[in-house]
């Protein structure tokens, strides 16, 4: 009897633990997983240290999706505090800085642009190699 109880208790704890892990993962999912709508533009991150295409145009309220299609770790960063040169980042007035964090190969990141204007972003480890990209956001029609 005590053996059964112990087993049941252990199983319950295991299931609760699994549920907690799943909840944690959902709660900490990258912005990419949090977005459900299809992106208005997609950008690939390459082995040759470029964002392809290097410039995309979307309307305010639309989303851009970046995919790391390379074997190299990249970031999508439009945060002046992460940049070491002024030319790496440009944000329209009122826009909020964003940063994907480290993106391993095959990982994705999405960002929805609310403020119209021109955004210049970069990859942190390849800032020196001038891995820059641009998003031009026009007012919603």
């Amino acid at each position, binding site marked *: 009897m005590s053996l059964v109880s112990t087993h049941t208790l252990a199983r319950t704890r295991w299931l609760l633990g699994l549920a907690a892990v799943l909840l944690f993962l959902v709660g900490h999912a990258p912005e990419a997983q949090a977005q459900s709508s299809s992106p208005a533009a997609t950008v690939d991150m390459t082995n040759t*240290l470029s964002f392809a295409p290097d410039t995309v145009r979307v309307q305010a309220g639309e989303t851009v999706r970046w995919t790391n299609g390379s*074997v190299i770790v990249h970031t999508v960063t439009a945060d002046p505090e992460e940049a070491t040169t002024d030319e790496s980042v440009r944000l329209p007035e009122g826009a909020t800085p964003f940063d994907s964090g480290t993106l*391993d190969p095959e990982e994705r990141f999405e960002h929805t642009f609310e403020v119209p204007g021109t955004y210049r972003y970069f990859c942190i480890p390849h800032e*020196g190699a001038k891995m820059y990209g641009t998003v031009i956001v026009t007012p919603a029609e």
Partner: protein
Amino acid sequence: MTISLPHFFSSSRPFGQRLLRRGAFVLAALALVLMVWAPPAQAQEKMSEKEKQMLAQLQEMNQADGYLEAHRDVQQPMELLGGPLSFTIRQTSGGVFVSLPDNRTLDPDVFGTPDQPLAFTGTPGITGVPVPMRGVSDGQFTQFERMSPFGDKNTTMANGNLMLQATDRTATDAATTEDEVMLKASWEDQDGNTYAIRCCEMLVSAGPEFPTFGGVVTNHILHGFTGIGTPLMPTEYTYAAFWGMGAVLKNGEVVDKPRIVHGMLTEYVRGENYKLVSDSEVTPTRRHFHLMVAPFMPVKGEHKFQPKDVATGFELPNGMELPFWHVMFENLEIESQRGE
């Protein structure tokens, strides 16, 4: 004739003891280097007598000879000012950049002009680039006319892993050293082959052609105009570097050893499209780690080097084997501390 070093790898004593006390006296005679793939061995054999004479003269003229002579027999070298500095450098995810043979554009700040050339003494590629090996156009040097590991061509490989633990204690070149290095690095090609470097069962406590500071150096400036390491790399602030004897592996099997292994954490010296930049284009605010297995070996009984290709096991598109490893890691975690 190159030196054979099998005994350096047969020790079963603990790492620290193996590292220095034994074989350390031999280091000064062997040691190190870094870099380059200047004239391949076959090309050197085909040299005319005049060219061989020029090569010998350039090696005789090596500017660091006097400095090295004063240090290589020191038995009790001074310790680093402020005490030992230990550091760990890791990469646990992401790929690497692998340099391919290419011609290096010559920076006038480092190499001067045809009328006033600089950086031409020492073993070609190791510490100098002979003027006859330089292209000239419009009164300026253009490029190193031999292929070397120091150019713009590269490829990427997946699953780069790097673990470097090291301590810089000994300040200068000497016959013995208290410096320590443990390096494990690996990466994979697209066919799933794994390449790896292991180092160092022995450090280069004194350099034959340029200083190695006991085998590990921290917070220094290397390459370019400095005369420390090949001038084919830009002058670069170096947070940490080492030179030692290690092994080259493919798919878990040793394919070449002993080989001179050099690693360094420097400011960022690549530009757009991963071009190897000139001195004025270096990015001081970013860093990356370079790992080099040079296609050279020390010449027995002499303070110079001769070309010897590395057996990497990696086949180039033209069917030739890549004759060196020059690998860059850029997704780094770095820790350091003063004291033991």
